[in-house]
C-alpha cells in the first residue's frame, strides 16, 4: 500500500510535540523579525509513527534477510551495542564538558584505541575520522604532513590500483595529489613489478586495499611495501576489508604506514541506511607525530584531550571534524571487541572466509569465476556465465530480490566484467547459505535455459518495480514542492 510523503499528510496546525508555554519576555533578536510560514507539515504522533513504520516496511535490512553486499560487510548488528551506546553516561555528555566530568568517555576512547593498535600491531591511531573515506583523507594528510616535514613537497603522485574503491582516487585528489593507476594482474592481484614500474621520486604513497576488492589477499603485499618504502613513499592500506583478517594478520607486519578501520564494517556498528560510520586510522611511527587533533593522552590528573597544536607533542596536521570522533560508534565497537574476545575475533574472521569460500565452491560450476584459488571473505564472479543469455548482472541482481535476498554488489570491482561480489559474512548460518546457493543455482539455470523474460521483469514483489534512474538524473527532482493550485 502506498505511503504519501509527510508533506502530503500535512494537517496544518497539528503537531506531534507538546511544549511548555514560553515565559513572557521581550524578544531580543537584535532587530531581526521572527520568521513565519516555513512550510513544514503538521502531523500528530500517531501519524508519524505509522508513516515511518510503513516506510521501514519498504526496506530490506540484515535483520530481514541475507544482505551479501560485497565490500560493505553487512553482518549482524548486536543489540547489546545499541543499548550500551544509549547509556546516559555516553549519549548525554557534551563534547565541551570539563574533562574532569568525562573521564569515563576518554577512557573508553583510550581503551578502543588500545585494542585497535594491538589488533593491527600499529603504534598509534587517529580516532576522529567519521567514516572510511574520511579516514583515507586523514591518512593521506598525515603522509602529506610527513613529506612536508621531510621537505619532500615534490612527492605529489599517488599510486592506486585499478581495482580500488572509488574513494581512493577521490581522496587522493581531494588531498591535492595526482592519481596514477596500477593495472591489475590477470590473477586479480597487484604485482610488485607493476608497482616498481610506477615508483619514482615524485611518489607520495601507494593506496592498496588488502584483502583486495576481488576478495583476494595480496600475496606480494610485503614486497610491495618494501619497494614503496625503498623509494621513499608510504604505504596507505585501505582497511575496508580488514574484517577478513582480524586476529589472523597484523597490518603492521605487512609494512603498512596508515590504514583506516571501518568500525561499521569490521566491528559491526549499524550501517543505518548509509551511515554514520567511523574510520579511525592506525599509523606507523613515521606518521604518528602528524595525527590530527584532538586526541587523548594520559596526564597527571587522569586522561586529557589535546585540543591545540601548541599542547601537542607531535606536529598535528590539523583537525578533521568538529569534535572528538564518532563516540556512539566507539561504544559499539568496544562492546563488539569485548564480546567477541580474542577467540571470537579470530573465529569471526575465519568464519567469514569460510562462508565466502563455501559460496564460491558451491557456485563455481554454474557461475564464472575470474580468479582461481581460495578467496578471503568475498566470493567474486563475473558475467561470462550469462553470455548470450540476454541477462545482465543487473537483471540477475533484480531477480535475486524476488528470491528473497538482497543482491550482492554488482559491477564492482571494475577489473572484471559484470562483477558479482558476494560477501556473506560470518553471521550467516550454513542453512541460509544453502538457501542462497540454491536460489543462485536456480537463477543461473533459468538464465542459461533462455528464460531472460523472468529476469527482465524482476523484481516483481517489491513496493516498486525497476526505477527509471536515467530519467531521475536527466531532470532532477530533489525535493517536494506543493502542487500548483
Amino acid at each position: 500500500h502506498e505511503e504519501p510523503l509527510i508533506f502530503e499528510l500535512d494537517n496544518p496546525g497539528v503537531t506531534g510535540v507538546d511544549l511548555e508555554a514560553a515565559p513572557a519576555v521581550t524578544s531580543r533578536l537584535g532587530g531581526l523579525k521572527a520568521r513565519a510560514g516555513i512550510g513544514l507539515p503538521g502531523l500528530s504522533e500517531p501519524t508519524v509513527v505509522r508513516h515511518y513504520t510503513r516506510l521501514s516496511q519498504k526496506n530490506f535490512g540484515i535483520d530481514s534477510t541475507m544482505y551479501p553486499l560485497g565490500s560493505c560487510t553487512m553482518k549482524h548488528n548486536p543489540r547489546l551495542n545499541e543499548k550500551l551506546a544509549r547509556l546516559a553516561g555516553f549519549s548525554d555528555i557534551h563534547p565541551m564538558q570539563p574533562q574532569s566530568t568525562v573521564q569515563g568517555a576518554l577512557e573508553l576512547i583510550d581503551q578502543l584505541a588500545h585494542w585497535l593498535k594491538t589488533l593491527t600491531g600499529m603504534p598509534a591511531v587517529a580516532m576522529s575520522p567519521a567514516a572510511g573515506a574520511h579516514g583515507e583523507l586523514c591518512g593521506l594528510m598525515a603522509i602529506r604532513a610527513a613529506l612536508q616535514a621531510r621537505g619532500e613537497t615534490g612527492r605529489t603522485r599517488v599510486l592506486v590500483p585499478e581495482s580500488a574503491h572509488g574513494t581512493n582516487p577521490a581522496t587522493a585528489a581531494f588531498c591535492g595529489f595526482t592519481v596514477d593507476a596500477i593495472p591489475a594482474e590477470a590473477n586479480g592481484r597487484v604485482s610488485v613489478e607493476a608497482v616498481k614500474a610506477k615508483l619514482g621520486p615524485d611518489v607520495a604513497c601507494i593506496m592498496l586495499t588488502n584483502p583486495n576488492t576481488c576478495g583476494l589477499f595480496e600475496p606480494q603485499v610485503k614486497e610491495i611495501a618494501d619497494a614503496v618504502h625503498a623509494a621513499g613513499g608510504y604505504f596507505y592500506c585501505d582497511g575496508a576489508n580488514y574484517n577478513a583478517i582480524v586476529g589472523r594478520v597484523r597490518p603492521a607486519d605487512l609494512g603498512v604506514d596508515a590504514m583506516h578501520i571501518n568500525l561499521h564494517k569490521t566491528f559491526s556498528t549499524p550501517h543505518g541506511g548509509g551511515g554514520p560510520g567511523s574510520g579511525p586510522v592506525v599509523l606507523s611511527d613515521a606518521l604518528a607525530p602528524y595525527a590530527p587533533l584532538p586526541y587523548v593522552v594520559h596526564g597527571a590528573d587522569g586522561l586529557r584531550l589535546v585540543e591545540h597544536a601548541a599542547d601537542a607533542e607531535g606536529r598535528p596536521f590539523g583537525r578533521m571534524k568538529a569534535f572528538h570522533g564518532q563516540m556512539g560508534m566507539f561504544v559499539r565497537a568496544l562492546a563488539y571487541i569485548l564480546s567477541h574476545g580474542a577467540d571470537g575475533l579470530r573465529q569471526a574472521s575465519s568464519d567469514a572466509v569460510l562462508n565466502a569460500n563455501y559460496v564460491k565452491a558451491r557456485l563455481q560450476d554454474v557461475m564464472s569465476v575470474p580468479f582461481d584459488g581460495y578467496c578471503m571473505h568475498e566470493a567474486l564472479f563475473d558475467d561470462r556465465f550469462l553470455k548470450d543469455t540476454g541477462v545482465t548482472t543487473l537483471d540477475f541482481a533484480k531477480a535475486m530480490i524476488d528470491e528473497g535476498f538482497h543482491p550482492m554488489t554488482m559491477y564492482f570491482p571494475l577489473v572484471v566484467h559484470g562483477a558479482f561480489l558476494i560477501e556473506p559474512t560470518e553471521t550467516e548460518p550454513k542453512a541460509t547459505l544453502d538457501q542462497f546457493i540454491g536460489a543462485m543455482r536456480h537463477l543461473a539455470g533459468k538464465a542459461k535455459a533462455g528464460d531472460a523474460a523472468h529476469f527482465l521483469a524482476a523484481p516483481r514483489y517489491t513496493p516498486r518495480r525497476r526505477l527509471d534512474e536515467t530519467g531521475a538524473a536527466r531532470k532532477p527532482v530533489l525535493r517536494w514542492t506543493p502542487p500548483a493550485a
Partner: protein
Amino acid sequence: MRYLPLTEADRREMLAAIGAPSVDALFGDVPLAARLDQPIAGLAPHQGELQVERALSRLAARNVPAGSCPSFLGAGAYRHHVPAAVDQLLTRGEFLTSYTPYQPEVTQGTLQYLFEFQTQVALITGMDVANASMYDGATACAEAVLMANRVTRRNRAVLSGGLHPHYREVTATTTGVLGVDLVTLPADPKGIEDLTAAIDDKTSCVVVQNPTLFGHVADLTPLAEACHAKGALLVVVVTEVVSLGLMPSPGSMGADIVVAEGQSIGNGLNFGGPYLGLFATRDKFVRQLPGRLCGETVDADGKRGFVLTLSTREQHIRREKATSNICTNSGLCALAFTMHLSLLGEVGFTGLAQLNHAKAVQLADKLAAAGVTVANDGFFNEFTVKVDGDAAALVDRLADEPLLAGVPVSRFYPGQADLAGLLLVAVTETTTEDDMDALVNALKDLALGGTK
C-alpha cells in the same frame, strides 16, 4: 559465541565442500611471517552480555551526563529533548541494518525519508535543494568552501571571526592541502567585524555563522549583497539549527550555500558524534554539490519512486574527478532529524525556537538583574557572559557541584587574555528555572566579589 552461527560440524562439512584441509589453508596467501598464531595480547576470551554491560556501564558511570545537573553547554552542540518515538522507530531493523540504498526497489523506505529530509532542510534553510547529509557541520563547512571555489573558479575564502573555531580549523585543514587562500578574521566577541571590507575580486566566498560563536545574530542581507556585487558566494553556517524556527532563513537573506550542524534535532549529544552535516544551496549549483542526493522518478509501472541520483558527481563513479570523496554519510542521524522535525511540524518547530529564545532571554534578564554582564544585544538561545577572572577555572570549579556552566571561550582561544573572561552560555527547552537560578547564584557571587 552468540553471534556466530556455525558449529564445528558445519565447518567440517563446508571445508569438505570447498575441498580445503583446514580454515588455515584458506589463508594460504598470507606471508608466513605475517601469520598470527598466538591470541591477541591481553584480550580476554569472549564474554557474555552481562559482563560487557558491566564493563561499559562502569565507564559510563564515570561521566556526568549533561541531563543530570544544570547544564548551559552549547558552542555547536545542544541538549534538546528528543521525543521517545524517534529512537524507537530508528532502531527498527529495516532502518538500522539497511545499507546505502543502491538497490532502490528494496530501499524505498530509506529513499523516501531522504527525499523528505532534503525537502525539510531546503525549507528551514530557505534554499532550493539540500543533499542527503554530511558528517557534521564542520566538514560541511569545509566542503562549502571547496564548492564555492568550483562554482566561482576562484580560490580565496574569507572566514568570519564569529565562525566556530573548530569549523575554521577543519576548513583550514581540508582546504589547506588544496592550496586555498583562507582569510581568517580574528575572534569577534562583540559581533562588530566588517566582513565586506575583506571581499575582493578573487574571493570565492565569505563564510559567516549566524548566530555567531558568541551568540550574536545579524541580518545578513547587506553582506550577501556585498558578496554578490563582487561575484562571491555567501556561505552561511548554522550550528544551532533550532534557531531557524525563529530567525529569518539564510536563504531569505541571500545565502548561496547554507551548511549546518543538524544534531539539535533528533540527535543526542553523544560526546560530539555521530552528528549530522546539513548542506543546502541554490538549484543552479546542484551539479557542484558534494554528497549523496535522492531524487524522484517513476518505476516500470509509472508509479512515483525514489533513487539516488546525479551520482556522476560522486567518487564511486567519478573517482578522482568527484566533487568530494564522501561515501558513507550520516543516514541514520538524518533519519532521526527528519522524524523529529516531522513530529514538530510547523507549529512545533517554530514553537520550540520561540521557547528556546524566551528561556534564553529569561536567563539573560536574571543574570543582568544579578549584576552579571551579558555581552550580547541580540541572540537566539546562547550568549556571552563576562566574568571577572578566568572563565575556564570557574567552569572547572562549578563542574564539581556538578553544574555545567557553559563553554569558556578560552577553550577555543587559549592564551588570549582578552577572551579569558568570556563564557558561552546556552539555554534550551530542557533548561528549568531552577537550573537558571543555580547558574545565576553561582555567577552572582562572583559578580559581587563574593567567594563560594
